[in-house]
């Protein structure tokens, strides 16, 4: 685990990865707070974990299968009624591809 604090630049990079807009004040406070939290988490860096298998899930269930049968699904209009913008049975989103 790295010794250094999380710089403001690094904080901005992570915010971009998380698609999270941050104000200047948030960048400053998060950079400090995240550094402090990770500093605390450093206690696990001292453990010898080389031969330990990671646990992704506490209760191991393997390949849960079910019959592929037709069942009820959610009503399209009802689902779209909750969307910020919908049209002709589809979600409306800002244009993704640029003009070229």
């Amino acid at each position, binding site marked *: *685990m*790295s010794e250094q604090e*999380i710089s403001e630049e690094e*904080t901005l990079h*992570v*915010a*971009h*990865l*998380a*698609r*999270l*807009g*941050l*104000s200047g004040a*948030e960048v400053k406070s*998060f950079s400090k*707070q*995240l550094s*402090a*939290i*990770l500093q*605390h*988490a*450093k*206690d*696990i*860096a001292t*453990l010898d*974990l080389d031969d*330990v*298998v*990671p*646990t*992704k*899930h*506490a*209760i191991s*269930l393997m390949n*849960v299968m*079910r019959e592929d049968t037709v069942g009820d699904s*959610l*009503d399209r209009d*009802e*689902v779209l*009624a*909750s*969307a*910020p*913008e919908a049209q002709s049975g589809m*979600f409306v*989103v*800002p*244009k*993704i591809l640029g003009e070229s």
Partner: protein
Amino acid sequence: MDLGAQEIADLVKSSKVSATQVVEAHLDEISRYDSRVNAFLLVMAENALEQAKRIDVRRSKGEELGPLAGVPIALKDNMAVSGFATTCGSKILEGWKPPYTATAVKRLVAADAVLIGKTNLDEFAMGSSTENSAYFPTKNPIDPTKVPGGSSGGSAASVAARFTPIAIGSDTGGSIRQPASLCGIVGVKPTYGLVSRYGLVAFASSLDQIGPFARNVQDAALALQVLAGHDDRDSTSIPGSHFDNSFTDRVAGLRIGVIQEMTTGISGAVEHTLNDAIAFLRSMGATVEAVSIPSTTYGLSAYYLIAPAEASSNLSRFDGVRYGLRVPGADITQTYEQTRAEGFGAEVKRRMMLGTYALSAGYYDALYGRAQKVRTLILDDFAKAYGAYDVLISPTSPTVAFGLGDKTDPLAMYMADVCTIPSNLAGHPAMSVPFGCDEAGLPIGIQVLAPAMGEQIMFSVAQSLQNGAAKPAVPVWRRD
């Protein structure tokens, strides 16, 4: 209003009281006193009265009613009920009405429970005080200057304030047990996979579990019996699982371990109550000994890497496209960033950042990967302990309820979960039972931990503790 769930169900089933009378009385209590507690984000009065009426009609026709006949129930507002706003305590979901109902809720309704409202929580269940709600903080009914704990603080407050005999919460790192301890009631986190998570808005999917709050152990068990069971809609639901609500209060001959790592850094009053509990269990014939579970010391660090990592992935769905808030930007990326900037509160942002960082290139192995290995150590250590002991006990929370606004440092707030987190990492059941209080009368809970699917023995020990416990704390406006 002091009636428990079993008493209400018995009265309604035998037509001594109608479900409508029960619901009216509880709605009246909420309208009178919830302004002092702020437990509810939404009171479903009309729906509750209609539901009660249908139950009464069926009863008058001689139909047999379910085990929760006419019992008013409050739901943490991160569980979906079709057609009713589900906010998760967040502005990003304000106004969203899910088109589906959580399996846990369907099971309650099928048992003839009455849904009375949705309760306040830390935004997306991230917090230990319910102060992170985007709407308002909830207050502890025992002392309104204190927090009720969190994240299921509204549900805990509803039960402690006698607004409902049962409330449902979710527990990812202690969010049922810690508020139960701080409010002086019973709170249960079942074995991971015992209760379906379908319709529970995901925080950290490998840790989240739904469970009940009640004012006594029997009512919590009654609720869990209804909630538990396999669900095809949740692939992590344990096939064939159920909880049989029949247990004793016998602890004679049981071997009980007291987790040493959870007895350091606790307040004097909590230590005193723990010692009282140990003495009581011994007097009932149990063997009680100290046991060391060394890896639980690292639980907090592992949890605050794993849970935010899973959350940063789960909460990526809140992007302003399919539901909830949208803040339009110049392009899609800006729309995402602005929507999330405006819709999420500080703690949710902090955990998104922490989780994204722990999963990002260069840190994945050192942070997230190592945390998952610590999870293995905790499972191994618990397995070793359960080789020698039937159940384990500890304090639920290192302190009694703290003051509203007291904890401003995020790390200090995280410490509130230090005793509860290991059970989530292990997927094991654990519950909090009120046992004592400090000089000021603030409640203190004892945590009972059991191995996976060990609910039966966990409830037996809890029932025994309840027999030996100090009288439960009463809400401040009912003290005299």
